[in-house]
């Protein structure tokens, strides 16, 4: 699509949408959000880019193959579950640790966040695989 308005708007919207998707991802543990909805928002940002500039340009801008994203996401999920196993607990047991960020206080990070990040990557990969193929048809 060659609409100038859309082309300019995408350049502004895309960083905002991607930041919002990360916000949703991190927020998701206790509040509405999470890997799935975050991944959908990020994928919709890329879908918008693909609609305006074409799937080829979007693939080049993304740099990684969406299939690799699916595999990386599933691998991350597997790893987040295996952390429990390695520490002698059942698979997928949630383990937590504090990440000291100095002036920003201490963040609680744990395997559920890693799991959510895996979901986030997989969702982006799946949605973009479908959208790129449809766009190229």
């Amino acid at each position: 699509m060659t609409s100038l308005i859309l082309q300019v708007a995408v350049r502004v919207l895309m960083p905002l949408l991607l930041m919002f998707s990360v916000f949703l991802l991190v927020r998701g543990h206790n509040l509405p959000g999470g890997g799935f909805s975050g991944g959908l928002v990020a994928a919709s940002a890329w879908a918008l880019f693909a609609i305006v500039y074409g799937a080829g340009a979007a693939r080049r801008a993304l740099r990684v193959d969406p299939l690799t994203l699916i595999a990386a996401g599933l691998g991350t999920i597997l790893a987040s579950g295996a952390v429990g196993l390695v520490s002698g607990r059942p698979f997928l047991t949630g383990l937590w640790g504090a990440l000291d960020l100095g002036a920003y206080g201490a963040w609680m990070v744990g395997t559920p966040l890693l799991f959510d990040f895996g979901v986030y990557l997989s969702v982006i990969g799946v949605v973009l695989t479908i959208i790129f193929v449809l766009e190229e048809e």
Partner: protein
Amino acid sequence: MTDLLLVLPVLIPMSTGILTLLAWRRRRLQRGLSLAGAAGLLAAGVALFAEVSGPGILSSQIGGWPAPFGITFVADLFSAVMVLVAGLVGFTVALYSLTSIDPILESFGYHPLYHFLLMGVSGAFLTGDLFNLYVWFEVMLVSSFVLMALGGGRRRTDGAVKYVTLNLLSSTLFLVALGILYGLAGTLNMADLAGKFAQVSASQPVGVLRMLPMLFLIAFGIKAAAFPLFFWLPASYHTPPIAISALFAGLLTKVGVYALIRVFSLIFVGDTAYTHTLILVIAGLTMVTGVFGAISQNEFRRILSFHIVSQIGYMIMGLGLGTPLGLAAAVFYIAHHIFVKTNLFLISGVVQRLGGTLDLRKLGGLYATRPVVAGLFLVPALSLAGVPPLSGFFAKLGLVQAGVADGRYLIVAVSLAVSLLTLYSMTKIWNEAFWKKAPEAGAREGARPDADLRAPLVPVALLAAVTVVVGLAAGPVFGVAERAGAQLAHPAGYIEAVLGGGSR
């Protein structure tokens, strides 16, 4: 250690799926990974079986949430045997597909899908939670939908549409049944339900209590291809590539039978005069309609597909009898059926390669040109029909003994008659494809009568050897089945393993 052993049969296919996804465009690497992953699953199955056959039933609370709130993975002997046999079939079919699968299908993602399917199958065998079982069913079905339709083409798409529609209907019914059951009992953990459902039963009208088992019976009955819900199976199993239909024929319907046995030996046991009698009637009708369907067919894989239906009847018969011996025979029968039926489908692939077709009228003379193939067909064919000393004989013997001990002579008579008819239709394949003279029509397109068969015959010979060994060592093998049957018939140990103490 227990925690690891119980999830390995799910984690290995999952990791293999991920790695083959990453190696999407490097075919040799992908094939190597696929075979290694399948071998890993088989090894995990062996390890799990070794552990379960010793001290007893294992359980692991996924995520550390105690049952009945979290998801429990649990392996009794029945589950362990199923995972072991699934690993065996997964490995042999992976071996076969390396020699036969079309490179185009590989580029469409055959290998990752294959392993995600195996992941769904293992998960379904190991989970102790009904909703989780639904999820594993979906993992398995979504992969199987794609595998079924892979490569497209009119005939294949036609088969896939029937397969998808009926299976989605079954999933919907399963989900509805889960909703009602959860509303009544407030839990979906199978071990917890065993006690809770009996309590709920006291205060509910009999109509409600009978509706629930019926919903499960229909939902799993469609997946297991039991009478009268089997028609999707012969309509679709002859269309995909041989390796895919061999895997489906061996494993998928048996997951449905597994779910039926689990649910009707653990949860719905209060009204057996009604439910289990009905199951016996269904078993008889499934055997008879399946075998008659097979007799009327003239295509190799269609005959085999109808025989799957007929054999499902035998497995359900063991469940319908409900005695420890009946359940033991059912377990033995399922395991025997999985490797024998997979083997027959693999041989149909070899025959297709030699003759260029699977239409029995156009085949012939293979015994004269390829006696080894003919011999390897005879082993599973006779085993399927129940000829001693192969595994099928002892499977049927167990069922007949259980039926006679229970005084159910009608179903015993039906099962024996169907056995004879099975032998008849195996003889038909033998006569048409192997014994009679090759038709004069001349060489057909795609026929390669002097193809090099050493590689594809390795998995076939492997499975044939398993049939023979299980038949010769029937005593100890049936001993394992008897212990599995006893665990199913007296579920106190299973419930204790899940609810008491958690992971050991």
